[in-house]
């Protein structure tokens, strides 16, 4: 198991655990973390699991690839920043144990 902390837009922190190999989207959905909808089932097709990766973690997670479906979807989302990613595209490898993700105020 690896740990992920979701920080709500109001600042409330919620630490959850998830099996290695699942993604940050599952970490949120399996634990009913509010603000992560994940409509499409985790296949990078809807942009409703948008998160801001904590700046301390962005290098380990990796930044958004400019060219690809994830970027194409995020361009239509509200409140994107240079730390924006889709949680379904963050596999929870052991090196990400302790990851901190910020949930945007609204999920499109």
């Amino acid at each position: 198991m690896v740990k992920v902390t979701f920080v709500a837009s109001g600042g409330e922190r919620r630490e959850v655990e998830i099996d290695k190999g699942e993604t940050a989207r599952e970490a949120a959905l399996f634990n009913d973390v509010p603000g992560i909808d994940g409509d499409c089932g985790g296949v990078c097709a809807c942009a409703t699991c948008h998160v801001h990766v904590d700046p301390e973690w962005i290098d380990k997670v990796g930044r958004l690839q400019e060219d690809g479906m994830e970027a194409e979807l995020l361009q239509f989302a509200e409140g994107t920043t240079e730390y924006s990613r889709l949680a379904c595209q963050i596999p929870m490898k052991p090196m990400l144990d302790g990851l901190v993700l910020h949930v945007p105020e609204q999920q499109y």
Partner: protein
Amino acid sequence: MNTQIMEMDTADKIAAIPIEEIDVARPSLFQNDTIGLFFDRLRKEDPVHYCRDSYVGPYWSITKFDDIMAVDTNHKVFSSEAKLGGIAIQDMHSVEGALDLEMFIAMDPPKHDQQRKAVTPSVAPSNLQLLEPIIRQRAAKILDDLPVGEEIDWVDKVSIELTTMTLATLFDFPWEERRKLTRWSDITTAAPETGIVESYEARREELIECAMYFKGLWEQRINEEPKNDLISIMAHSPATRDMPFLEFLGNLLLLIVGGNDTTRNSISGGVLALNENPDQYRRLSDDPSLIGSMVPEIIRWQTPLTHMRRTALQDWEIGGKQIKKGDKVVMWYLSGNRDGSVIDRADEFIIDRKNPRHHLSFGYGIHRCMGNRLAELQLRIIWEEIHKRFSRVEVTGEPERLYSNLVRGITNLPVRLHAR
């Protein structure tokens, strides 16, 4: 007349059609609501189905959830471009007397992306929060004005009225003339066979009238400070302000149709679904907190747009079938939303599903419905307000359905309201 026997007879006939002769483009199948039986067969026997000959020409039907998802998210191979035929089973430019409308739903990147980005803020979550109290106030007024105990047409009195009011708000459209929006939405997707317009020529005339009306509003808004309504956003945004006129009109009509037919038919479809599933209606009455998960279930159940179409830009294999460059590929959302291999008990209307938003009604990928949360917002509000006032909205007669293979519409739904 024994309707049970008639239905059996219809089912037997459909079961006996040779699979290669099945043509699901026929609008009558949607009007008489037998289409589900055809899709059941295709999903079982030939999930990627080629129809050689139909009134819209040859086309592929994609009928299973995962195959639809694969096509919808592969816009580099499956194009929405209007000049290749666009996004509906009937080619956009095949019709004599039609206007050459251009809209971003029928464009590929990069032009699609720029124009969509320009109008997205109008339905962004922050704007929806501003809209919620206005929509609620209007929904309350609509319901308060309805007579209890008399038979009324739910479609006209509630579904059309609420969606039209919301659209008028989004566009900051002159209030007293808001039913013009309904009319323009209806004719945009209508063919003469529907009876909504007399001919494509007559439709063209009306659309030009619509264009002139919006041109007036545009000129007014461009000379004012930028505001949050869609016309003002389009008039002031660098991505849209220099649009050629037919493109401006096309995108306006896209937003009208997108926000009108769809939500209207989901409002009607929800009343029908609850009446056809009285156990679910009882559960809702006992626990109105289920409205939150019922709303996406209504949208799945109704599937207000039956399909979206793409054109293959290269040869591609789906489900073991060879699609050729240039082929017309139709993603039947209505069928994928009944795919039991992805959705548990897909043939049942269940108001508290675990993942109710895992449905195809909004599409997926870059063309996914940008108003999806606004649609849900309107449905949630109307059901919350219905619950406060009425113990039951009782369907008292047969619904009438629209003659269309694109819009899954209910044109008349007689109901009687029971006071709480």
